[in-house]
């Protein structure tokens, strides 16, 4: 059944493509967001697609297809007709960490897509319960090493950004805490605010208000420069910790989408990221907008390949460890 559908989709794509390239787009475009509405990736998708719609002259409709750490939606996008009318907002998890986390993954992030461009990254913060004894990152690292598996590292479920980045953080500082799984950032933060768990790593948009409100502590932000949203939080770079990570979000089209169509989408994304209002709204989220060179399809292709290469060994090692 599935094979038949893919075949049909490919056939339709081939049949439709000649007329497409010049007139594209002639009807609304569906942007699959592989997460529930309201999350960071969804919000970035909605902000960016709003201006892209204006540039393209056709509405981009955001369709949330959540499930299995985002891989359900991305699988559907990979099998869609490559005509530019179905695109997907992938992210660090679906196009970087997924091959290591999901052995039965039905797509290859590096070869099954025509990359359109990087939309925005959201930096990662290392946060802890407000009653935590450590004052700064150095004290915290010492504490975590000493505590070993007595430390509780919360994360928002297997495959989430907080999961991968937490594993990376722990392997960077060389500690093996007890990982406490939650079904989302909300419940995890709730237990951190009430002091049930010690620390976690997560995207700035999820934790910024809790830090500003004094409900949790922030030790460092994994960015080269401080974020204007949290100017008091030092960067891992200035603290001398080799922990540079960002939950990037990027637009992909299915493999075989005509290059002219990809170019139009890429151009629309570029214009959206230059728009003052879009910039302002992304900045409010603590989002980092890529520079001109970082927005191109080629740059995204390289990013995906680098990320898969980076995450696969770390995550595989951590997963193998857990199985023991």
């Amino acid at each position, binding site marked *: 059944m599935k094979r038949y559908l893919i075949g049909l989709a490919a056939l339709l794509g081939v049949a439709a493509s000649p007329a497409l390239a010049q007139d594209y787009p002639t009807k609304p475009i569906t942007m699959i967001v592989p997460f*529930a509405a309201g999350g960071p990736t969804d919000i970035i998708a909605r902000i960016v697609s709003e201006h892209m719609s204006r540039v393209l002259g056709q509405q981009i409709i955001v369709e949330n297809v959540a499930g299995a750490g985002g891989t359900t939606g991305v699988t559907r996008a990979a099998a869609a007709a490559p005509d530019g009318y179905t695109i997907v907002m992938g992210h660090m998890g679906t196009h970087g960490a997924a091959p290591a986390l999901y052995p039965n993954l039905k797509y290859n992030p590096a070869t099954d897509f025509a990359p359109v461009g990087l939309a925005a990254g959201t930096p990662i913060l290392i946060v802890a319960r407000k009653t935590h004894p450590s004052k700064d990152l150095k004290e915290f690292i010492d504490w975590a090493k000493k505590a070993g598996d007595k430390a509780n590292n919360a994360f928002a479920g297997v495959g989430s950004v907080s999961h991968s980045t937490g594993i990376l953080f722990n392997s960077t500082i060389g500690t093996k805490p007890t990982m406490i799984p939650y079904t*989302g950032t909300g*419940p995890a933060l709730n*237990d951190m605010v*009430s002091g*049930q768990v010690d620390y976690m790593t997560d995207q700035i948009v999820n934790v910024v208000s809790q830090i500003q409100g004094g*409900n949790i502590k922030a030790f460092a932000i994994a960015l080269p420069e401080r974020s204007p949203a949290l100017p008091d939080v030092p960067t891992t770079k200035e603290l001398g910790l080799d922990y540079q990570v960002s939950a990037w979000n990027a637009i992909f089209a299915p493999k075989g989408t005509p290059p002219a169509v990809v170019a139009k989408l890429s151009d629309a994304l570029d214009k959206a990221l230059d728009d003052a209002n879009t910039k302002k709204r992304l900045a409010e*989220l603590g989002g980092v907008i890529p520079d001109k060179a970082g927005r191109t399809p080629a740059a995204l292709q390289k990013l995906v390949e680098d990320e898969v290469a980076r995450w696969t060994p770390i995550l595989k090692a951590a997963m193998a460890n857990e199985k023991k």
Partner: protein
Amino acid sequence: MDLFSHLALGFGVAFTLKNIGLCFIGCMVGTLVGVLPGVGPVATIAMLLPITFGLEPVGALIMLAGIYYGAQYGGSTTAILVNIPGEATAVVTTLDGHQMAKQGRAGIALGIAAIGSFFAGCVATIFIAALGQPLTRLAQLFGPAEYFSLMVMGLVFSTVLARGSIFKAILMVLLGLLLATVGTDLETGQERMTMGIQSLSDGIDFTPLAMGIFGFAEIVRNLENPEARDVVRGKIGRLLPGWDDIKQSIAPVLRGTFIGGILGILPGNGAVLGPFASYTVEKKLAKDPSRFGKGAIEGVAGPESANNAGAQTAFIPLLTLGIPPNAVMALMVGAMTIHGIIPGPQVMTKNPDLFWGMIASMWIGNLMLVIINLPMVGMWVKLLKVPYRLMFPAIGIFCCIGIYSINNSAEDVMFAAFFGMCGYILLKFGFEPAPMLLGFVLGKLMEEKLRQALILSRGSFTTFIERPVSAGLLIVAVAMLCLALLPSFSKRREEVFTE
């Protein structure tokens, strides 16, 4: 007092023509999606999110909040008229609400649900305004261990939901718990019992299960004996509750409001327990518990009030803490973020107009809902007069659209059809679906909290007894279980002796 100046500010914001209009639209849309089986507030709010881009944040949130609690009002309509719970919180309403409809008292059931909801909504709003912040701190006492014990207590309620055999009810609860274990393992990410079907990797969705087991199964059963259905059509009594009905409902409404309001504050979606807890309490307090399940008005008034009170107080963790207790609230977080307000503990001080404006709008919204809903009762009841051969395709189609709209997935519709078949078989063997749905809803939370609590305690079960709140809840659960089981044991003994 601060409270009054804050409320004055709030009403100042909410009483602009634009915001009243948005509140009305929200309530209207909410009522409609609540009535349509399957289309829930989550899908609706997600679809309408882009429309709010052009609005001011306060107006946008007032409208979205209206959709949410409006859907709670509307949901009871479907539960009462056609025995389909749109959401977990409406499951209980089907028990006595639909029985009342079958006895020609649909109007009274709908009326009392609206009045109870209105009262609960108003009280809960004042509750949020006055006690929101201190209560948040109280709710923070709830860690994974406490939640687990709360869910255990919830499961004990299920034995009371049974109309017939307690034994069968317990079996159904266990079946519900089993169904809840399908999906990805929380800790390891391994897929469990998904049989390689990708849409099962995040578990079975509530809506296809509830639509199938209640909605589709009910349609099949009605088609089997159309005469029974026509009896319902023939008997339509008075449209609105009389003084006697209201007198009977006052105490259940008060108790339901209190129970639902308290459980709604818990940031771990305690609100789902509200209607179940209220129903249990009413049945236990009733002079003649055997009336329950056969159209007792208390069984509608209490849970409907609890449901609405919980829907309102669920805003407390969102507004005071910035932490969403359920999927709808998570969407509200998204909506606020899109509008440049990142919800958190400072929303109250940084955006007081938004915070108090929303609270004031909830009060206005509740008033609107009762005004929208009471006159519509007559219209809804007339729907029952529509011949069933025209009704059932419509119900079926709306169910399918609703189920599809949740994940944009056709497989979910197939699942609903499958569950419908299972539901019909279960009905034939005299098994009630309501305890199963309770087991299913609680099962997911229970497993999650049990494992979190045990990982945190490094595997020690004493954590549930060492923590005072958790121990207290467990004691209540055990006591209730004894109360529920004793009569049936003694009855059986009598039966044995008479033989």
